[in-house]
């Protein structure tokens, strides 16, 4: 058991060594680009054009194909960051710190998308741009946490140190975010009986549900693509004075 574990760890460390990572990610990047973008586009097209109209909300419910996957993705990315943070703290694996750092702006972006689309969706359904709905509120707080992590990282000059600093914050975050979600839910029922909730409103039929699943897949693939691209940039920026970087670029030119 221990042997297998060590094997996995060493493999992870080896694959994560910056020059090697840059090499293999260059190979898979075109494939990832093709697959992720095609699944993403197909999912959106299916959801936005071919799925049936909701009888209650009309066509505006189609925002669900953008809003819900990005909201879920915003939370999943934080989970991912906490795992990376744990690896960074315990085993001091360099690449996991860089992964953590590169995932943060993507997570913030998807959380922002969820916030903006949620607020746009609110306009026709609630009549206002913003309602202190439990889901929207906890998404807003999640966005603040992402912003804090990005701000903290940029304020520390030594980037390896900054990685470990944000891994501490992400570990605190992953413990507190469920409590935040639960307490915001509670707060909502305390102050105003929930009249209308965004996601449970349309009664989903299978032909509404299937494109949503495809959208989920597409969003996750897009995340993988953006993460790979961000990580490549991060790796190169941090090691720009090493010899392998200029060598890689020479290879690309040939």
């Amino acid at each position, binding site marked *: 058991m221990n042997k297998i574990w060590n094997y996995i760890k060493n493999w992870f460390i080896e694959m994560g060594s910056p020059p090697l990572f840059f090499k293999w990610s260059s190979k898979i990047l075109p494939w990832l680009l093709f697959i992720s973008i095609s699944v993403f586009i197909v999912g959106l097209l299916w959801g936005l054009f071919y799925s049936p109209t909701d009888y209650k909300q009309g066509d505006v419910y189609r925002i669900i194909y953008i809003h819900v996957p990005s909201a879920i993705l915003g939370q999943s990315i934080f989970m991912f960051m906490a795992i990376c943070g744990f690896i960074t703290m315990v085993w001091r694996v360099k690449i996991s710190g860089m992964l953590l750092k590169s995932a943060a702006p993507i997570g913030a972006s998807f959380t922002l998308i969820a916030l903006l689309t949620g607020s746009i969706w609110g306009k026709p359904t609630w009549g206002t741009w913003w309602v202190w709905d439990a889901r929207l509120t906890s998404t807003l707080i999640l966005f603040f946490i992402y912003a804090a992590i990005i701000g903290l990282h940029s304020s520390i000059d030594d980037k390896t140190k900054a990685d470990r600093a944000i891994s501490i914050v992400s570990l605190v975050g992953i413990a507190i975010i469920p409590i935040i979600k639960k307490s915001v839910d509670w707060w909502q029922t305390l102050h105003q009986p929930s009249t209308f909730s965004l996601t449970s409103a349309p009664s989903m039929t299978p032909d509404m549900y299937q494109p949503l699943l495809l959208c989920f897949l597409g969003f996750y693939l897009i995340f993988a693509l953006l993460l790979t691209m961000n990580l490549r*940039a991060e790796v190169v920026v941090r090691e720009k004075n090493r010899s392998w970087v200029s060598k890689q*670029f020479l290879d690309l030119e040939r």
Partner: protein
Amino acid sequence: MIEQISAIINMDGNGLYVWSCLFILFFIIGINFYLPNRKLKKIYKENKAKGQ
């Protein structure tokens, strides 16, 4: 044909909301695409300048 397209774009008067959501999605993902590539290009240029 044109009526069909305009019906899709209009979406019973809700089109503006849906399309602006789609625009936000592509805009923010586009920024995320652009930034790392710009960083890579910058380093690439620096390396080129160093090599010459």
